C-alpha cells in the first residue's frame, strides 16, 4: 500500500503570534512553523494503514512550502513516514488556494500511490477547499471528512466513513483516491526516540516549479486571485466580570446576565 500524505507547515497556533506581512499575506517568518494539526491525523491514519501490510508499503510526505520546511517535516518523518517531497520555489511566495492546488496536483501526478491523504483544513487558512481542488485536477475520486478509512487492496477500492450531521455516510470508490481526513481517525502518535533519530537519514527531495514543468508566471503571489483590501481589529470584548460566592449566587448571576441579554 503506497500512500502520499499532503503536509502543510503552518505557523504554530499555540504561539498566538501569527500576523500579516506588509503585503497583506500571512507572514510565515513571524512564528516558527509546525506541521498542520489535521495533517498529523492524516499521517497517523497512513502509518496505521501501512502497518497492516508493510510489505512494499511506504508513506511519502508531500508539501508545498518555503525552503526552510525540511526542519518542520522532520517530526512527520520521525513519526514514521518513509520520505518527503518538498515543492519549493521563491515564485510560490504568496500563492493562493488556486495556485496551491495546481502545484500540489502537478507534484502528486509524478508520484505513484494508492491513496493520497490530506487534513480537512489548515489552522492558518482554514479554507478546506484545496484537497477537493487537487482531486478535481487529477481526476481522482474524492472522499472527504473521513472518520474511518478501509482500503481493499485486492479489489483496488477504498471505503470511507464520511462524517455527516446524523452520523456518517459510507462511501466507496476505486483506488487511487484522495481522502480528506478528520481528527476522528485517531490521535497521532508521539514520535519515538528511535523514530526521531532515524528521521535524520530519511530523504527529502526538492522539486522546483521548473522541475514540475510549471511556468513561474502562472502561479504564486503575482497572479493571486484574491487580495486583502483592509484589516481591522475586532473590538475587545470588555472586562470579564468574575463572581465568587456560593454556587447559588453564581448561578443567579448567570441567570441575571442571560435574561438581561434576552438569551432566556
Amino acid at each position: 500500500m503506497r500512500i502520499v500524505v499532503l503536509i502543510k507547515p503552518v505557523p504554530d497556533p499555540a504561539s498566538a503570534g501569527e500576523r500579516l506581512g506588509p503585503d497583506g499575506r500571512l507572514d510565515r517568518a513571524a512564528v516558527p512553523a509546525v506541521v498542520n494539526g489535521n495533517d498529523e491525523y492524516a499521517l497517523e491514519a497512513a502509518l496505521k494503514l501501512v502497518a497492516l501490510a508493510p510489505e512494499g508499503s511506504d508513506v511519502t510526505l508531500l508539501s508545498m512550502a518555503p525552503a526552510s520546511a525540511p526542519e518542520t517535516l522532520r517530526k512527520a518523518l520521525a513519526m514514521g513516514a518513509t520520505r518527503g517531497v518538498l515543492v519549493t520555489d521563491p515564485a510560490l511566495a504568496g500563492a493562493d488556494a488556486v495556485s496551491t492546488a495546481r502545484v500540489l496536483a502537478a507534484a502528486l501526478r509524478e508520484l505513484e500511490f494508492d491513496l493520497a491523504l490530506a487534513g480537512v483544513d489548515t489552522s492558518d487558512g482554514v479554507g478546506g477547499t484545496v484537497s477537493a481542488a487537487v482531486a478535481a485536477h487529477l481526476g481522482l475520486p474524492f472522499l472527504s471528512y473521513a472518520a474511518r478509512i478501509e482500503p481493499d487492496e485486492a479489489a483496488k477500492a477504498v471505503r470511507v466513513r464520511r462524517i455527516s450531521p446524523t452520523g456518517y455516510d459510507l462511501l466507496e470508490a476505486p483506488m487511487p483516491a484522495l481522502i480528506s481526513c478528520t481528527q476522528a481517525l485517531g490521535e497521532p502518535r508521539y514520535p519515538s526516540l528511535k523514530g526521531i533519530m532515524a528521521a535524520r537519514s530519511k530523504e527529502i527531495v526538492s522539486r522546483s516549479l521548473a522541475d514540475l514543468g510549471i511556468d513561474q508566471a502562472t502561479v504564486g503571489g503575482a497572479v493571486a486571485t484574491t487580495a486583502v483590501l483592509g484589516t481591522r481589529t475586532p473590538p475587545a470584548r470588555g472586562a470579564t466580570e468574575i463572581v465568587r460566592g456560593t454556587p447559588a449566587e453564581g448561578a443567579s448571576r448567570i441567570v441575571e446576565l442571560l435574561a438581561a441579554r434576552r438569551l432566556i
Partner: protein
Amino acid sequence: MTGPGAGPGDRLTEEQRLLRDAVRELADSRVAARAAEIDRSAEFPEDMRQLLAAQDILALPFPEEHGGLGGDLLSVCLAVEQLSRACATTGLILAAHELGALPILLAGTADQQARWIPRLATGEWLICFALTEAEAGSDAAAARTRAIRDGDAYVISGSKRFITHGSVADLVTVFAVTDPDAPRHRRLSCFVVEVPTAGFAVTRLEHKMGLRGSPTAELAFDEVRVPAANRVGEEGDGFGLALRTFERSRPAIAAQAVGIAQGALEAAVAYARERRQFGQRIGDFQMIGAMLADMDAATEAARQLLYAACAEIDAASPDAGRWSAMCKLVAGDTAMRVTTDAVQVLGGYGYIGDFPVERMMRDAKITQIYEGTQQIQRLVIARALLGKDS
C-alpha cells in the same frame, strides 16, 4: 509546546527539540507520578528502568552500529534534564548508565564495543562506574584496589565505595592499580567486570539524604579474575581515561541539576499562584516574586551554559574540560539554591512530604558533590585559566 527551555529562541535543532519534547511527555505522563513513592521506598525503580529501556532512552548515548541511537552529548543531557525534572532518581538511571559506559565508548576496542554495547543499548544490561574508594574520593588517583596480572587475566582485589547502581549493574567499570610504582597518574588501569562473578560482592548499601531510589553501593573485590581482554585501554591509561570520561559525564549531572531546579521552580510558581494570604496571591508579594524571578533566571542561565558546554565538548574544543567543569559547578549550586528557595516559598508546606520540594532539595545536594565536588570543579577551571607555573 510552551514553557521554559521550550521556546523558539532556544537554538536547538528540530531533532533535539523533538527529542526533548518526547522525553518530557514521557516524564510527565509516566515518571512524575512515581517520584514520591520511589523516594519513600528507597528502592531502585526497576519499572522506570524498564520504561527507559523500552522507550529507547537508554540507547541514546550509544552508536547506531551497536544498536544505539547515536545521540550527541546535548541529546543525552536533554533527556536527563527532562527526566530529572520529574524524578531525579530516574534521570540518574540514564546519566549513570552513560557514565559507566563512557570508558568503553572512548577507549574500548572494536571487539569490546561489540561485546558490551548492544545489550547496554537495549537496557538489558546496566553498567556502573567504580572509581571512588573509602580513602580515595577527590583524590581518585590514590585508589588502592589492586589488579595483578596473572597469565592472560588480572586478579582484582580491593573495595569501592559510593558506587551508583553498584548493586543493580551487570557490568562494573572498575579502576584498579596495575603499577603501584608508576607516577600517580599512571598507576591505574580500567577493567570491565561482568557480574556476578566469583569474589565480587555488594557489601553495603548507603542510606542517603536524597536520590534515595538510586542504590549507592560498596563493592568488594576478593581476588576477582578478569580476562585481560576486559582491560579497557592500555595499562596505566586508567586515570586519564577517567578524566576524559568526566569531561562528558559532568554535563549529564549538570543536566540532572538543571532538571531538579526546573521542577522545583515550577512547583514553587504553581504554589505562589494558588496560595492566598492577606487577601492576595503570595506570588504577588514582591519578596516572593523576587525569589521566583531569581530562581527562574538562575535556572535558565545554568541551562544555557549547559547547552553551550555540550556544543563545545562535542566539537572537541581544547577547552572542553573547563566547559564541563563550569556547567557542572553552576548547575549544582543553582539546583541547591533554587530548591532551598522553593521550600521557602512553600513555607511550612515546603517542609513536609506532601509536597515535592523537600525531596527536590534533598536530591539537589548531591549534585554539588558527586562526579567531582564543586571544589574540584573550581580547581579544574582555575588551572585552565592559569596554566602551569613555569
